[in-house]
């Protein structure tokens, strides 16, 4: 891949964003923002569940850590805007949020990834719930009522063009989407990155080839937690309000669905699935108005079931969107 690919994609996406900013209504813009958050969640979980072959069920927990860190920081600690450019704050908030989540990831991963087998699913499930309950009982974080008044980045103007607040958020979000994409892509396509996949395919063999499997698994888990924290931070600034109930087990499962539906072990599959899963309930909304009843979740679930029956290996399987139709490998 070209060295300049991240920069070029950033410029292209930033320009596209100008159009989204001008032509989408606020409701669609919010959906779009959630799509970006979900893309980061799906990509990062895919590193653990897809590439490294471990089964984590605690992504909502790491996301919550990120979301509350960012909420707290942005309401308590604001540097004077005159000195530091406004958008940099938000990048900084998400960076710190990611680091907190990564530390939590290390604390959870270090003991549980040492064991071979499915312990991780149980431990992470428990972890997610513990985080939720801690927040629920913490008055500084708003408890069950939730955390209100989280600021989002304010609008910027661009050569005379007055832009909406959406665009500021969008810039920060695509910066992280691209960072997440390229960091994970580079990690897994290096020679050392194949260590992740060898663990998925045969952990004992990987171990006896000289791969420090525990360390590699922890590395994958910490990186994944970091980006989950970042996604949580973005989520809090996009919604302006967060509550413990948002970060329930259901949220974790939703991210697992994106990864499985997209194809574990494909970079682009989970991205595609994240888009579909975030947009589908919204796209089905007219149906609700038509029938007067909320059948959305029923239809949504049916679509998922059908997709999994038709493509049990996920939408893209192990392939990427750009070589989906090419039959290079025998599968």
């Amino acid at each position, binding site marked *: 891949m070209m060295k300049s690919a991240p920069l070029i994609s950033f410029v292209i996406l930033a320009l596209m964003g100008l159009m989204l900013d001008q032509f989408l209504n606020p409701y669609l813009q919010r959906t779009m923002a959630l799509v970006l958050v979900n893309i980061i969640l799906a990509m990062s979980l895919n590193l653990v569940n897809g590439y490294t072959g471990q089964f984590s069920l605690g992504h909502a927990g790491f996301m919550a850590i990120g979301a509350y860190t960012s909420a707290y920081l942005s309401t308590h600690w604001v540097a004077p805007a005159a000195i530091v450019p406004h958008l940099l704050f938000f990048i900084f908030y998400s960076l710190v949020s990611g680091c907190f989540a990564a530390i939590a990831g290390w604390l959870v991963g270090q003991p549980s990834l040492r064991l071979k087998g499915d312990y991780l699913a149980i431990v992470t499930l428990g972890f997610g719930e513990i985080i939720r309950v801690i927040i629920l009982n913490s008055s500084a974080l708003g408890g069950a009522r939730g955390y209100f008044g989280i600021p989002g980045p304010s609008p910027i103007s661009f050569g005379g063009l007055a832009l909406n607040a959406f665009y500021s958020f969008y810039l920060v979000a695509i910066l992280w989407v691209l960072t997440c994409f390229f960091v994970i892509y580079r990690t897994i396509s290096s020679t050392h990155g194949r*260590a992740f996949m*060898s663990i998925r395919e045969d952990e*004992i063999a990987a*171990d*006896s*080839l*000289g791969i420090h499997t525990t360390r590699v698994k922890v590395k994958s888990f910490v990186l994944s937690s970091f980006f989950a924290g970042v996604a949580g931070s973005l989520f809090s600034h996009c919604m302006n309000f967060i509550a413990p109930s948002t970060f329930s087990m259901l949220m974790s499962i939703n991210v697992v669905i994106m990864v499985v539906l997209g194809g574990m072990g494909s970079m682009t599959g989970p991205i595609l699935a994240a888009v579909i899963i975030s947009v589908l309930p919204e796209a089905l909304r007219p149906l609700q108005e038509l029938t007067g009843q909320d059948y959305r979740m029923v239809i949504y679930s049916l679509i998922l079931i059908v997709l999994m029956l038709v493509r049990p290996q996920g939408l893209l399987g192990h392939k990427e969107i750009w070589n989906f139709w090419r039959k290079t490998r025998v599968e």
Partner: protein
Amino acid sequence: MNPVLELEDLHVHYGSIHALKGVSLKVFAGEIVSLIGANGAGKTTTLRALSGIVPCRGRISMNSKEIQTLPSHQRVRLGLAQSPEGRGVFPLMTVEENLDMGAFIYSDKEQINQDRDFCFTLFPRLKERRSQLAGTLSGGEQQMVAISRALMARPQVLLLDEPSLGLAPLIVAQIFEIVKHLNELKKMSILLVEQNARMALKFSHRAYVMETGKITLSGNAADLLSDDSIRRSYLGH
């Protein structure tokens, strides 16, 4: 002369099962040593203990350095590589990627390429299949991948667990020829676990016979081959 690999009084427990009850054996430089025995005797367990896949009690030394406390991933750096029972190839990686994983601990591209080419001359079939996913190879081809992958780690002692399992007689003969070739050309020491006792004894220098977790007999392969009790129990007449 000191052995390159020595096991002393090795014990392995799987829960309540006492699978190895004090196994001792030696492999000297440049030797092919085979370990034969009935199903469930503990041969695979011995190799697993050697590679550090199962915890054990006792002593394992490599060139007089004790290694029993080292984790699995460090033992390969001391020159111990295993082609595991049931092959254990990475099914969703290509043949070539599998081989490259074997050289995971090295970063000298030049030598890695040479080693890979060497494997391809040993197994020309693998060269034809280099970009095929290993999971789609035939059993024999997967065996070739497993052996080659172990070779890529540049072992001083190569551990082979039933390389002939499920293979056609012609391929079995080929694999044994290659084992011998490696031993003669690369001066590699080889510890070979085999069900096919006749073949194993024919190609090794020395052998150990194992029964329910213990070594019951050992000696020169040629002597064992003509030993009456061995003939009755393991050679089928």
